[in-house]
């Protein structure tokens, strides 16, 4: 009897160790909705159909409306979550048009922690937010996925200031591997991205342009990782002018 229990315990420890030893693999997608989904007439089904093709674990959104007048008082995020079988988290930046405007996340797995921070650095056009969720993957590895949309102001100090706020909020409090994904409104050689790379790995370095979606000429959307040993398994830029002025990123990434 004791032998059986010991054997069971050894098996359990070995199985747990094997699971914990597995690398963290995640398929992520980034979508800038352009004015809450205006190009697709705020149609959740259109965006859901696009997302479904790529079967992501996590989708992050910028420019997501929540019950605004212009989107017909719809909760587009929750509707997409229902259609896709995912869990939603909305990160409000500011009140807008009878509702809310900001970033959002859909996750295939439930999140046990989620937060939104907002900031309006001097010179910024509007309040911007960064939202994140913490997930335990099926192999029990934890990961934090964050989304942001940096200000479009001409002065890069505005974006750098927001990045500093983000770094302070999400990097210092724990040792989870983190992905920071979104529209940085800055090209790879800009001061903003040079600053970003002090703390973040540009996982898609060298990949294609992301805007405008009908003829991409600039790269301003990124998947960034911290610590800096994320591995890019695949990284695709997919363009749907009928859905957004940005191309979307679909990336499969791994953390050892």
């Amino acid at each position, binding site marked *: 009897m004791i032998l059986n229990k010991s054997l069971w315990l050894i098996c359990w420890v070995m199985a747990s160790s094997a699971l914990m030893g597995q690398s963290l693999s995640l398929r992520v997608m980034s979508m800038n909705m352009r004015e809450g989904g205006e190009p697709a007439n705020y149609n959740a089904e259109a965006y859901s159909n696009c997302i479904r093709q790529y079967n992501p674990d996590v989708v992050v959104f910028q420019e997501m409306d*929540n019950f605004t007048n212009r989107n017909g008082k719809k909760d587009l995020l929750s509707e997409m979550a*229902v259609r896709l*079988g995912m869990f*939603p988290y909305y*990160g409000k930046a500011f009140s807008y048009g009878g509702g809310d405007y900001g970033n959002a996340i859909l996750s295939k797995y*439930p999140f046990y922690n989620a*937060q939104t921070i907002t900031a309006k650095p001097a010179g910024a056009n509007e309040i911007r937010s960064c939202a994140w969720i913490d997930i335990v993957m099926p192999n*029990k590895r934890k990961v934090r996925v964050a989304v942001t949309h940096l200000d479009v102001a001409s002065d890069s100090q505005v974006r750098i200031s927001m990045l500093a706020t983000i770094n302070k909020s999400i990097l210092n409090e724990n040792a989870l591997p983190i992905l920071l994904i979104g529209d940085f409104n800055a090209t790879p050689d800009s001061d903003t991205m040079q600053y970003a790379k002090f703390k973040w790995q540009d996982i898609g370095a060298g990949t294609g342009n992301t805007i405008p979606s009908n003829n991409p000429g600039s790269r301003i959307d990124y998947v960034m990782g911290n610590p800096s040993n994320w591995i890019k398994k695949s990284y695709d830029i997919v363009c749907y002018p009928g859905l957004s002025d940005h191309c979307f990123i679909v990336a499969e990434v791994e953390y050892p």
Partner: protein
Amino acid sequence: MTSIIIVTAITTGFLFSSCDNPAEEDKGYEAPAPPTEINTRNVLELEFYSKLNGESLFDNTGYQTIIDNISNNTKTLAYFFDRSDAVIGETSPIVDIGWKTKTKSFFVQNDYTDTSIQGTGIIVRPIINNFEGTGIPDTLFVGGCTLMAPLGKAVTLTLSTCQLNDKYQFAAFVKALQNLANNNKLILGTIKSNIANDLAQYLKTNMKDFRLYESDNQEKPYQLFVLSPVSFVVRAVIFENNTNIPAYKFQIEYLN
């Protein structure tokens, strides 16, 4: 010699008298009794749906009555759905209820496999900037929404949930609640009936400044519990069977 006899006699007498009046056993922390008079302006309402039998909450009969209840009742601050289990990649009942009632949905997992997740859903009305949680795989998940309660004066609360199945979870549970008193955290959850008394005893010796309510229905496999700072007290728990799913309406007073 006489003095030795006197000292011995006094000491012996003291020892015997001590045996006659043993020092009271340390029973741990006891919360002060709440005031008898209820300030109705400071009473908040929460609804907890549970079968208390360890089975999934939703079956083929669906949850339209719950959707109607939430849509028609704006007084309840938050709704909890014990064992509102989900299947990975399929529509989660709690997300669907959130979308159909124009509320925000959250989900605190308890246990999961590669394909399915057991857990407790939370429905609230406002956008939540801070969904605060702890996730320790194979041990404990706790999660909750921080929101403003419209009481006599606005009070910021964190409404959390978890399920306790075994005594080994207690230490992690207490650690997750270290700042209970400072942060106005209320935890509504379920606990296996056979360890409910053990939790009460464990908390008495490992925490202070709290109130614990346990539903004391030993005939069910699970009981409800509410753990709060002493500044809150459960005034009433009303069993409701308006929907096809058992619900318990908690009336909790903020003592201030």
